Structures are given as C-alpha cells and as structure tokens.
C-alpha cells in the first residue's frame, strides 16, 4: 500500500491503462494452466479408482479424469487428471478435479458444466470444454460403479448406476 503510494508520488507506478483490453483468458484459466492442480495418474487397475476418458483427438480435446473413492463411505478422497486440449480444457478439468474431492459420488454427478464455465468465465466458443469436463466426471463415476458391480455383484450398485444414467 505504502510502497504503491510512494511510487505514485515519484511518478513511477505504471499508469492505469486507458482501455482495458478485452480479456479472452480469465485469470482463473491462466492460474490453472500455470499451476495445474492434481495432474497425474492413479493405477487403472486399482479397484478404488474410477477412470473417465472422454473426447477425441480429432476434436482436439481428450480428458482423462480419475477418482479415488473410499469404499466404505463412497466419498471421493482424491482425483487426478490429464488433458490434451486448449488452455480452457486444461483449466476445466483441473477445476473438475478440485471440486470432486471430498464429495460423495452422487453429489458430483450434479456438477454442471455451466458452473465450471462460470467459474472460469469461459467465452461461448469454449463452452464445450466445460461440457467435456462434466462428461469426464460422469464417466469416472460410472466406471468406478461398473468396477464395483463386477467385484460385488450386489444389487445396491444397480440403482445408483441408474441414477447416474438418468
């Protein structure tokens, strides 16, 4: 505060720009790009891990989202992502991994792409990146549940799966 004031006094501070150049990248997007959270992988074959792989290289967007679920409570304890895509796609998947941590599986299915887009101030042309992130979350949860169903063969896996598909 004081330093800025003293700088202004000496006429050293950078002048306020007369026009604010229109921003295409929100600060949050840049932040997630420069300091991505939760980049990495879990072991695919681990029964507590659900992997969602969505997108296509032809579209220029591929997201892999992995969740580690606590078997007893159904809570997502950790998440990792890897993305092939533009800055907005990387930021969307990074945000997705942050938001799913510590939540129940049913809860994360309600995360909407519009929320991710709003958090990152994505322009309309980039909305599909947030859609892909939402799909990735859903795919990861579905994959985990399929794994559990195979292991247990219990009926309680089925109604949750139906809720996921709804």
């Amino acid at each position, binding site marked *: 505060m*004081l*330093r800025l004031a*003293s*700088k202004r*006094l*000496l006429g*050293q501070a*950078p002048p306020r720009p007369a026009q604010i*150049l*229109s*921003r*295409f*990248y*929100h*600060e949050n*997007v*840049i932040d997630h*790009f420069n300091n*991505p959270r939760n*980049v990495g*992988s879990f072991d695919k074959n681990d029964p507590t891990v659900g992997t969602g*792989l*969505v*997108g*296509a*290289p*032809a*579209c*220029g*967007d*591929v*997201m*892999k989202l992995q969740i580690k679920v606590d078997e007893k409570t159904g809570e997502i304890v950790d998440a990792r992502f*890897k*993305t*092939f*895509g*533009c*800055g*907005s*796609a*990387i930021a969307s998947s990074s945000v997705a991994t942050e938001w799913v941590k510590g939540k129940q599986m049913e809860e994360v299915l309600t995360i909407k792409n519009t929320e991710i887009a709003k958090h990152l101030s994505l322009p309309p*042309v*980039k909305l*599909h990146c947030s*859609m*892909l992130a939402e*799909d990735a979350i859903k*795919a990861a949860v579905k994959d985990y549940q399929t794994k559990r169903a195979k292991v247990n063969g219990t009926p309680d896996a089925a109604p949750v799966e139906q809720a996921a598909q709804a």
Partner: protein
Amino acid sequence: MASKLLASSCRRTLARTANTSAPRGISTAAGAAVVAPTPEAFEDQGVVTVKGVKISARPLYLDMQATSPVDPRVLDAMLPYYLARFGNPHSRTHLYGWESDSAVETARSQVADLIGASPKEIVFTSGATESNNISIKGVMKFYKEKKRHVVTTQTEHKCVLDSCRHLQQEGFEVTYLPVGSDGIVDLEKLRSAIRPDTGLVSVMAVNNEIGVIQPMEEIGKICKEFNVPFHTDAAQALGKIPIDVEKWNVSLMSLSGHKIYGPKGVGALFMRRRPRIRVEPQMNGGGQERGIRSGTVPTPLVVGMGAACELAKKEMKYDDKRIRALQERLLKGIKAKLDGVVVNGSIERRYAGNLNLSFAYVEGESLLMGLKDVAVSSGSACTSASLEPSYVLRALGVDEDMAHTSIRFGIGRFTTEAEIDRAVELTVQQVEKLREMSPLYEMVKEGIDIKQIQWAQH
C-alpha cells in the same frame, strides 16, 4: 517505515533514469536477454498484462508471415512524404503534385525491378487482398462471355478462396486442386483440370502457413501451353525468393507491402502487357492507376513499398543465407531435445523463414498459452474463430489430431540467434510440461496404439 520506502524508491528512480537513457534497440531482443534481474527491479519494470497474461517484456516476435516490422530505412524514405512533400500525386498543376508523382513513379520502378517487370505493368493497391480480388473477380468478369471456369488450389489464401466462392455464387465454376502431403500441387492434375473455357489459373507462390514453394515455372509452362492466364499470390514470396515474371509466365501477380518490412496498407498488382490481360476494375472513380484502381495513390505508403523492394533486392541473398542458418538452428535445437516433432510441408521446397511444426500429443492453443513470451501462431482449431483446424493442414492430409498441434515459427531479417535460442528453450520446456499433462502421451508411453482406440464423442 514510510520514509525508508520513499528513500528506496528515490534511489531506484535515480538508478533507472541512468539506465533508460540508452536508446531502445529495434529488435525484440529485450525479451531474449535472460540476465537474471534482481527481484525488486523485475517488479518495477513495465509488467504488461494483456488478455489476462502477465509478461515481463514484449514477447520475441517469431510470426513474420503475419506481418513484419518496418525497416528503419524504409521509414526514413517515407517520412518526408508525410511532413513536407505531402502533395497528391494526381495534382498536375503545382510542385507538390509533381514531386509526389515523381516519387510514386520511382517506387513503381523499384517494385518492377524486383520482379523483372516494366514499371508500366505495376498498379498500386491497398494490399495483396485487393490485388487478389481485382485479379480473380476482375479477370473473370471481363471475360465472362467466353470463360466460365477457374482453377485454383485448396491451400490458397482466404481472400482467393472467398473470391472464388463469390464467383461460384454468380454462376462460374471453380476447381479446387488438391495438394500432396508435401503441399505441392500435382502438375498432372492441373493439366487435366484445365478446360477450353478456363479463364484463370491461380496458384500462390509461397504458402503463408506452411511456406512451401510451388513449381511456378512448370505451372507457367502448362498455362502457356493452354493459353490460360496465370495469376499468383506472391505476397509471401516477394523479396524472399527470386521472382521473374518472364520465367514464370505469370499474367497477374499480387504483392504485399507489409510482408517485406514495408508499411501496412499498400500492395501492388502486376498486370502483363504483352500479351495484355484485361480486368474489370473493382474500384471505380477518377480513373487513377490506368483505370484499374481509382483513388488517390498514397504516396508515403507507396514510397515505403518501393524502398522496401529496393532493399529486398539488395539484401535477398544475405537475408536468405542468414535465415536459413537460423531455421536450421531452431529445428535442430528443438529436435535435439524433443521427439515426436513433425515438419508440415516439404522441407526441400520451402521458404526457410517459415517453419511449421507439429508436436505430437500436445495441443496447439495450450502450447501458445504457455509460450507467452514468444509471438508465434498456430494452425489449431481453438485459435481460429470456428473450431475447425487449419484448412491448409487438412489439405495436406495431416491427421486430425496432429492438425491441432501445429505451431508456425516465422523468422525474418531482424531475428537474432539469441531469440532463436530462447524460443527453443521455451518451446522445449512448454512441450515437456504439456506432455506430462497429456493422456495421449501417457498412453503412447504405455504402448497403447492411439489410433486403435474407439473414442467416445458426445
């Protein structure tokens, strides 16, 4: 506390005024100097925040195909015509007009000299886009009774393709020739595409995205054989490769000022006189520029373009040698540290100053975002307004996933070795970081063949 801060700021001001008295160089080497600054001085420097990105200095400019800085010698030639000799070249009655006209004519001969033409065959326009429009629409509309067909390629500049589309809407027919995977047009296909009612063949000399040089002499020969006018968009070729309108047998050639270190807003059109090619003017008015392009000829801009052409003629060989060495340095530097790097387009038949690379498993826009200290451009979908990857790369037959990964490095007269080295360093760093984040790279490392996977699209 406050007094201490004030004192330190005072000291810094004095130190800074001492440093900033040295004149700022023209080159963008400011960003290339990686001398570690003290942390406080770093903060005080003009931190530029554009589009949410904070960069510490102006980025290195490696996008010479988009535009080029004006050569100081060109600017020197232009300034008198803004300040003292500001007359309209078409004013016939006083000194201001006469001297302005004489400058325009000098510039005309400078441009003509560079391409082996006569000054009477040069028409000044507002840029290569206008010249392309005049050539394509003007020629076809003039000969519209007899000639209804145009032959061009799929990798032309947007203004050529759009003019052709406009002609199609008016009832003409257009053939868009495919190119090989090296970007070169197939001469046999060209030969078979020409019909008795073909009014124009348009093939650009040097492609702006991938830099490949088309076989101009051979195409010229074919056009002469069939007696079809040959138009070429030489905006990227002027001053960079030797051009001879006689050897190439071109009837029309579009030239641009701001690609050869000249001012923006000016270009030229070469129109052959023997045999004469006629066009319907697209700009109507007082009949300036022999009725082809009405409107006051902008003397300073035209003088600038002329000066730029003269410099280009003198320095073409030297520049070419230097740029070639820099391109090799760039390519070798990157390939030494990274695998999965593909050069798009033919390496042999290529203008050295254009290097279009694809980095496998890394997406172009995210790489550009990471390369914020280097000004380059990409053929990736995300950077175009639509979500389509570059049509030029698609015409090359580049796999769709690789089309999303391309970066175009443009090297020019003012690029230094330090800038190239820094660009190599930053590129390698960013690509490695993004590959760590890429699921495709991970899959490849695990030995999975990506092409076999069924992707779930939504």
